[in-house]
């Protein structure tokens, strides 16, 4: 094995108005030909900065402050920009995260590939085209001869990522930097792409730097791994060694936070707590506010609190929510005069029940209709057929649900993206107190204020958070606020739509812990939606699998993960990268 790339003591600085930010500090790593070197870490760890630094594409005003990047012996730091540009694509190439955005939408695949090939090799158009066709075949694209003249939007996500890889391979580079190459893909496709990368690496003897936040992916295909945290190397070595017997506490904690596919944990333990807490935050209190006050308030006037112990078991009680033959069709509008289309069925014939105090996990890939299901329940979309019953009474669908309908309070939702689910222009106090005031749950403002502070404490936030704006918080903290907002409405039923998929694993673990705690304390019924089977396993009592808008399988969690019945369920379980040791 020849050493392709040797990074030593690399420091990258970004001057900002708060001072100079050290994106990388003294990072050293090396990559050999025919080897996949994983870079893993949470957001802000500096993984992508390593890639950009190697490519010479550090975003202004970032710069390499010190250290060397030796590529086949040649130091790339300080290289003339024209020379660097010749090097790019030719010797070093790159694969980006999102195949939806990394291809030029206006040019055909052929145009983009031929241009790239002819940029670096003196060949005529025909030869270049033939090379492009061969490459696309190599990456596993079907009907290459005809499809090469298609535009990017005509390909599915997985196919597109194959095209991206073919493009990166156009000039037979020695080193490829793959920045989260499978993060935007469904698990079933992810596995194929990872296999492809592995094959190409071996067959072409290419060195690959694989940047990812997913330890499962690292475990799956990398030869060696470097763990980064806040711009510094935490641990580096062969994948087996680092993941098998992590030496550093951070690595251990990181691995502990990853939800396990093979077993259910009561709680995540040993969590890294990175969230900075300013000192004065902890001293700022609203008089009389405490987590206990919030718990008491939430439990008062709450039927569950009184009845849950009285009834013997979950299964004997009537379902809190039951759905029969739900069907949702999109795009079948009669508005156009000339194009009455029949629309796309996002959901068809879905029936399910949620028992009181139960967590029902909904799992499926993108396009499976899992979010549509949630929206149909809360009334955001209009079902075209089927009926829903909530707490023994008919739940009017979509627009027929009046604004004052009691279910509007009783059903609450936690969204996927905490950056868009909180109104950035309102204070946290305003955000949380809005449902309280809207539903008229308190008698006066001081009580509202006390309650807001208490609920914040309940979800693990300092009370002072209430005077701040969402943008002053990290993603995990925002998600806590979102949970608090859902909680103060005193809901019977909570829908969590991918509540952790936008978060780092350690934060995900915290939020999952929080949800578990709250569910236990308040006996909430939860519909928990996720694409991540491991997360579902940690959270759900029962599992529902959706595929293309249809219900594939319903089973108790343990039995599902131990012996899935349907072939699609088996496929999903098989393809999900996981930590199994």
């Amino acid at each position, binding site marked *: 094995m020849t050493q392709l790339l040797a990074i030593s003591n690399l420091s990258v600085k970004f001057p900002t108005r708060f001072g100079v930010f050290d994106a990388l500090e003294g990072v050293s790593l090396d990559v050999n030909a025919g080897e996949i070197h994983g870079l893993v870490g949470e957001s802000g760890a500096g993984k992508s900065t390593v890639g950009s630094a190697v*490519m010479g*594409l550090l975003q202004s005003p970032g710069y390499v402050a010190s250290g060397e990047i030796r590529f086949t012996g040649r130091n790339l730091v300080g290289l003339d920009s024209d020379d660097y*540009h*010749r*090097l*790019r*694509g*030719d010797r070093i*190439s*790159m694969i*980006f*995260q*999102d195949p939806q*955005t*990394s*291809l*030029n*939408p*206006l*040019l*055909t695949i052929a145009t*983009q590939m031929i*241009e*790239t090939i002819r*940029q*670096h090799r003196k060949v005529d158009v025909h030869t270049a085209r033939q090379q492009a066709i061969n490459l696309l075949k190599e990456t596993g694209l079907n009907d290459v001869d005809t499809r090469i003249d298609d*535009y990017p*939007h*005509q390909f599915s996500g997985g196919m597109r990522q194959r095209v*991206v890889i073919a*493009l*990166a391979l*156009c*000039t037979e580079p020695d080193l490829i930097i793959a920045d989260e190459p499978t993060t935007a893909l469904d698990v079933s496709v992810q596995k194929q792409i990872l296999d492809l990368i592995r094959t190409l690496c071996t067959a072409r003897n290419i060195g690959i730097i694989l940047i990812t936040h997913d330890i499962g992916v690292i475990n799956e295909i990398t030869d060696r791994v470097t763990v980064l945290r806040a711009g510094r190397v935490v641990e580096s070595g062969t994948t087996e060694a680092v993941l098998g017997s992590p030496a550093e506490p951070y690595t251990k904690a990181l691995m502990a936070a990853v939800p396990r596919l093979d077993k259910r944990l009561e709680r995540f333990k040993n969590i890294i707590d990175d969230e900075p807490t300013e000192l004065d935050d902890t001293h700022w209190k609203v008089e009389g506010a405490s987590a206990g006050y919030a718990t008491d308030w939430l439990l008062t006037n709450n039927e569950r609190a009184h009845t849950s112990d009285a009834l013997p078991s979950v299964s004997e009680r009537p379902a809190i929510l039951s759905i029969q033959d739900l069907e949702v069709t999109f795009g079948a509008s009669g508005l*156009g*005069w*000339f*194009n009455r289309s029949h629309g796309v069925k996002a959901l068809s014939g879905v029936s399910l029940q949620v028992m009181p105090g139960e967590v029902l996990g909904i799992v499926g890939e993108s396009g499976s209709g899992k979010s549509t299901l949630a929206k149909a329940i809360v009334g955001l979309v209009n079902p075209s057929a089927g009926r829903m019953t909530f707490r023994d009474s008919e739940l009017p669908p979509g627009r027929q649900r009046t604004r004052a309908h009691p279910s509007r309070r009783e059903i609450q939702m936690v969204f996927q993206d905490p950056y868009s689910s909180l109104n950035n222009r309102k204070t946290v106090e305003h955000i949380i107190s809005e449902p309280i005031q809207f539903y008229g749950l308190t008698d006066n403002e001081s009580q509202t204020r006390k309650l807001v502070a208490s609920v914040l404490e309940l979800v693990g936030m300092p009370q002072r958070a209430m005077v701040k704006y969402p943008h002053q918080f990290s993603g995990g903290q925002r998600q806590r606020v979102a949970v608090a907002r859902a909680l103060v409405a005193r809901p019977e039923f909570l829908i969590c739509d991918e509540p952790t998929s936008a978060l780092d694993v350690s934060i995900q673990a915290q939020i999952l812990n929080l949800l578990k705690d709250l569910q236990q304390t308040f006996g909430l019924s939860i519909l928990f939606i996720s694409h991540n089977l491991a997360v579902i396993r940690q959270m759900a009592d029962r599992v529902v699998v959706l595929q293309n808008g249809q219900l594939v399988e319903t089973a108790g969690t343990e039995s599902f993960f131990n012996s899935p019945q349907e072939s699609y369920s088996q496929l999903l379980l098989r393809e999900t990268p996981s930590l199994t040791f």
Partner: protein
Amino acid sequence: MLAFVLRRLAQSIFVMLAVSLIAFSLFRFVGDPIAQMVGQETSIEDQENIRERLGLNDPLTTQYVRFVSNLSQAEFGYSYRTRQPVSEMILSRLPATLELGAISLVISLIVGIPAGIYTALKRGFLSNALLVATLVGISIPTFVIGIFLIYLFGVSLGWLPTFGRGQTVALGWWQTNFLTVSGWKALILPGVTLGVYQLTLTMRLVRAEMQEVLKTDYIKFATARGINYRSLYLNHAFRNTLVPVVTIIGLQLGGIIAFSIVTESVFQWPGMGLLFLESIRYVDIPVMSVYLVLIALMFVVINLVVDLLYFAIDPRVRLRGSHD
């Protein structure tokens, strides 16, 4: 795609009817056409007779129905002022306005687009100078620019004509400026006056869009593939700015037509805008109303062309369209 065009045409008829109604209600407020038609010695009775004969005493609805039904039969009526057929008057003025508009559009594009790309890519003195210069451009009222240019190039330097179209050549009914030296010379000052504002908008828009596109993944990916900068900026980046740029340019064409009223007035450019101003002055209702409807028609056509250009530019639109 045919369905799309048909749908747009249906909407267009609605737009045109609305504009014609507005145009029509405008009449009553512009002034008294009769007083402008007759000499000072014409008696009040004679004026009343004319009013009656022109149908101006009919109820407004009757007048509107008559107007629309005439329009639909391509009957545009006669000018109150010159008594010529309105269609002929407008047709004879149309080439002047279109050629002026075309020149100013060309000026705004051939200067605005490269300048926009340049300022998006480079920072530095020239870039800042361009940005400031164009700011000055949109900060000065069109008529001040026009009069200033006339004074400088027409009077002080004597290089260019101060008014009119110069020598024109007839191609059928179309009088063109493009075939004579004096015609070209006459186009320069009004073309620049009218183009400056659009140029600024084009440049700023191209700049903003370029800056956006340059931050996209596919440009980063293309850079990572070592695509040469020329192709990167023009073929990859600029092409992707075209959809918004074409949209805005379509809208600007409307602005050019609207602002040509001022420019034509300053340069005595015998186009439709000047005709329109004269018509307002003489309360020449038939000319005004047909002008307005024609402008609405132009807008409709421009909007349609812009939408069709999307088909040409963006395969996503094109291919979705063909599936319908």
